């Protein structure tokens, strides 16, 4: 699935287009469109909201949560801005010594891995997880890291991709990688395709495989 430019794409098809104003309103409209009911959503920062929504939309269309034990499902993500938006927010709250009231609910979002945690808590996923910071989406890193997880039999399935959000800029691209008969395959378009660097890059760019 992809979410960018006010459009949600699933399996190569536009599922939802929103005209609403701010990023916050946009995320809220997607939340409503997909009939998601999760009160904690409103408390998340925008990075977590984007990761949460993306995982929600992608996983609604798969059976991986039923197919694999929680310990065998991994989450490996990348982004460019880490948790910079909330890092700044936290910094502002501690900069003035006369108004020194850091907010716990801001501080908790000052690591990018919290977006993995939000997905894991929601879906009770307990497998290997990591977030890598990269200037742009790095299909090689995803391919090699996830391949190692499969090679070492640490996961049977992995939710992977790119979740970037900073101020008004947002972009997510998530896909599921599964191991079937020793063949690693990934889902992102209409059918399963072989997992390799080129295919991951093509999926990200929306090019046909």
């Amino acid at each position: 699935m992809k979410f960018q430019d006010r459009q949600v794409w699933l399996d190569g098809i536009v599922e939802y287009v929103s005209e609403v104003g701010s990023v916050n309103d946009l995320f809220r409209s997607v939340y409503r469109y997909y009939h998601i009911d999760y009160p904690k959503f409103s408390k998340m920062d925008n990075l977590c909201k984007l990761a949460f929504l993306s995982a929600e939309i992608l996983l609604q269309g798969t059976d991986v949560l039923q197919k694999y034990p929680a310990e065998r499902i991994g989450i490996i993500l990348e982004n460019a801005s880490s948790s910079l938006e909330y890092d700044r927010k936290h910094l502002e709250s501690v900069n003035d010594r006369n108004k020194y009231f850091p907010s716990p609910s801001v501080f908790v979002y000052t690591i990018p891995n919290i977006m993995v945690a939000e997905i894991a808590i929601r879906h009770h996923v307990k497998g290997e997880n990591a977030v890598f910071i990269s200037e742009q989406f790095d299909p090689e890193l995803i391919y090699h890291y996830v391949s190692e997880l499969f090679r070492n039999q640490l996961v049977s399935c992995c939710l992977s991709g790119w979740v970037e959000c900073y101020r008004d800029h947002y972009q997510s691209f998530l896909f599921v990688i599964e191991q079937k008969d020793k063949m690693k395959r990934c889902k992102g378009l209409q059918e399963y395709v072989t997992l390799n660097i080129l295919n991951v890059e093509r999926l990200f760019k929306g090019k046909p495989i």
Partner: protein
Amino acid sequence: MIEDLIYRLKREIISELDVENMTPEELDPEAPLFGEGGLGLDSIDALEIVVLLDQNYGIKIQASKEGREIFYSIRTIAEYILAHQKK
């Protein structure tokens, strides 16, 4: 006086804790704030209330055991504020 304080606390909790789709009027001051059957707040929310009480009322909550009783409901928080604010 306690009713005014309860109303103010409701507004602050809704605002600071991002409690959605709820007005101060809908918030039951006797209902448990944490756990099932209540507002469903979590441990981060508890910390946020600690900060709120310090920032807005000058009240510092130190012991976690004490916090459990104080934070049971909005009314118990209001009662604690009235009993300790000017000491």
